[in-house]
């Protein structure tokens, strides 16, 4: 049943994401910004598993969109908070595309809480396009909590950070604690430390989904190209060297699908196994994607190195994904802590 639903969602997404930078209103009208928002607040009441389908398709199309910052992470953060007027309002507006709530958190694997003037948050996805900023901070008891600020608030400065990958928008966010004093903290439902961990897993797995989409797109493109490009009077796809490189790409994609599928299921169901499945998916799939996209560029030959072919955009995005929210080595450190 879910498989059918996901296939349908995937097919619609593939149609819609042909534009490099789809209109936010269109995404909202398709129900994507409110996928996980409860039905009582105007959303679809779906789970992370459905958000993950969109994330993967956005990778496949190398889509430029604040979906990661606003929906995967912004809405994802709001859903982890105790219900209340501020949270509910933001979710309601996010579902219809009026709000673009972006969470501000350090993009490392450890999810160190607390953005301060002394330590600004750098490389925050989509912060410059936010209507609202969700600052991950600590309440008066020292527990992780969230402060919501409208974009343009004097308490937070957002400066765009250009990066080579033009399909992502990152920013540096600096916070003025004095202007922040007195802002009401929104509390996490349940154990705040656990909520922050789950948020970190969401971020890591969403990026792994994106990288899987990049890999799938590049395998398809390479196979299609190898069937039509002729050299020495034959399609290059009939040469063993090319065939075997494509086979290796296929193996990486198959392996990536398994790791992503396990991690998505664990995160969506709140399974504690996500603590292991998420770093496995993030570390392996984002690294494999760089390798697969690199092979795609190689097998396309000279044309693959041109700006026109667009393969460079996939390679840059794959490389950025590998570094966002913790490097492969950082994620493997989390896994290895269990061996001692």
């Amino acid at each position: 049943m879910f498989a059918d639903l996901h296939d349908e969602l995937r097919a619609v997404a593939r149609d819609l994401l042909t534009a490099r930078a789809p209109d936010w209103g269109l995404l909202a009208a398709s129900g994507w910004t409110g996928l996980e928002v409860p039905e009582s607040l105007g959303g679809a009441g779906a789970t992370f598993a459905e958000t993950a389908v969109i994330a993967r398709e956005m990778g496949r199309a190398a889509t430029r969109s604040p979906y990661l910052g606003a929906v995967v992470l912004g809405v994802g953060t709001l859903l982890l908070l105790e219900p209340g007027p501020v949270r509910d309002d933001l979710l309601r507006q996010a579902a219809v595309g009026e709000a673009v709530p972006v969470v501000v958190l350090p993009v490392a694997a450890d999810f160190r809480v607390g953005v301060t003037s002394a330590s600004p948050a750098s490389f925050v996805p989509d912060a410059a396009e936010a209507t609202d900023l969700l600052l991950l901070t600590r309440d008066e008891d020292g527990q992780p909590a969230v402060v919501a600020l409208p974009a343009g608030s004097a308490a937070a400065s957002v400066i765009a950070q250009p990066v080579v990958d033009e399909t992502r928008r990152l920013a540096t966010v600096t916070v003025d604690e004095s202007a922040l004093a007195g802002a009401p903290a929104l509390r996490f439902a349940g154990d705040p430390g656990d909520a922050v961990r789950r948020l970190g897993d969401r971020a890591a797995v969403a990026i792994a989904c994106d990288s899987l989409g990049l890999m799938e797109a590049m395998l398809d493109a390479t196979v299609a190209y190898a069937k039509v490009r002729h050299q020495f009077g034959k399609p290059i796809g009939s040469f063993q060297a090319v065939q075997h490189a494509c086979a290796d790409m296929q193996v990486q994609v198959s392996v990536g699908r398994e790791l992503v599928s396990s991690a998505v299921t664990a995160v969506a169901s709140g399974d504690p196994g996500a603590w292991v499945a998420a770093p496995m998916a993030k570390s392996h799939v984002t690294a494999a994607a760089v390798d697969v996209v690199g092979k795609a560029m190689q097998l396309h030959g000279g044309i693959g190195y041109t700006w026109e072919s667009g393969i460079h955009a996939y390679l840059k995005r794959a490389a950025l994904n590998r570094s966002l929210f913790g490097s492969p080595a950082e994620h493997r450190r989390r896994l290895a802590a269990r061996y001692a």
Partner: protein
Amino acid sequence: MSDLAAFRREVSDWCESHVPAGWRAAQTGAPDAEFVAFQQWWFAELKAAGYAVPHWPAEWGGGMPAAEQAVLYSELAAHDAPRLVLQFVGLHHAAATLLAAGTDEQKARHLPAILDGEIWAQGFSEPEAGSDLAGLRTLGCRSGEGFVVNGQKLWASGAAHAGWCLLLARTDPAAPKRHGISYFLLDMRSPGVEVRPIRNAMGESHFCEIFLTDVLIPQSCLVGPENGGWQVAQATLGAERGMTMLELAERLGNAGFRWLVSACAAAGALGDSLADDRLAAFETEIAALRSLCARIVMGHESGTAGPADASVVKLYYSELLQRMTDFGLEVSGLPAHAVLRKPASSGWESGAWLLDFIGSWEWTIPGGSSEIQRTIIAERGLGLPRG
């Protein structure tokens, strides 16, 4: 508790009381006769529990749902049970061939015998027909009520102990090479059959050459149509790969990874960031392999398996095994070179790292080498033009 969880408990309890504690030590350096006796004993134990042929149809003593088989293999691996090595071809390849293409008489003659411990070998490859199996030259000539066979087979695992052999021979030399091959059941006690063991890179001799000189095979031992043997072989070659790969993946994920961690601990490398990083990468890849195998098993069950799925798994498993055993060897250092024997009846990862590493080529070369698997993935899986 779900049925599957109850079954897991049942198998786990059975393993606790049946897997002999010291079998690894006893099997290390054991003479051939002891290995054979131990294999037959363990097979009889599994048979008594109803775990020997779970993948066969119910009428032949199997009928276990795929999900339960997966649990069975995962529990056997978790309890570090001995592997069935000697019976492998009989239980899997011979049975699959008989069930798919055998006559009622052939099934009735052989399936119960396999369950009683009849050992089988596979006589496919030849000196001039390795990756290009269809180029085989062993000749079968019609003669009265059967065929007279002459030729030479190579890499027949366990042939020295086998009572029977799956045999491919050319019966129409004039036909295109894939249309002139017949599939036979060869009684290894027939006059004219000579078996010579070949010592492999590990120093073991379970591979054999089989020389066939005017061997008479009766018509009743032909499987499928005369000259239709290639098609029978193609249909049954990969048929059992899903579940057998799942068993191997479970073993890699249980004992295999545990040994890798303890090898690092023994070398004082645990906690070292480089060793930890490699370990975590292997744990991740094993997790992916196990889930890939489970998906393929379910794909076979539901008929949704892709044409190259089995090749993806075989290629990935064999190269992962090679990289993992190489790492175990590297991290263990010189002491690994002083381990002169690995336990018989163990998996491909026994903790005797150098021998395991060398033995890993027994996965990347036979059964379709890694190069052949990549070509299959490219041509059948991805639809690239034939080279």
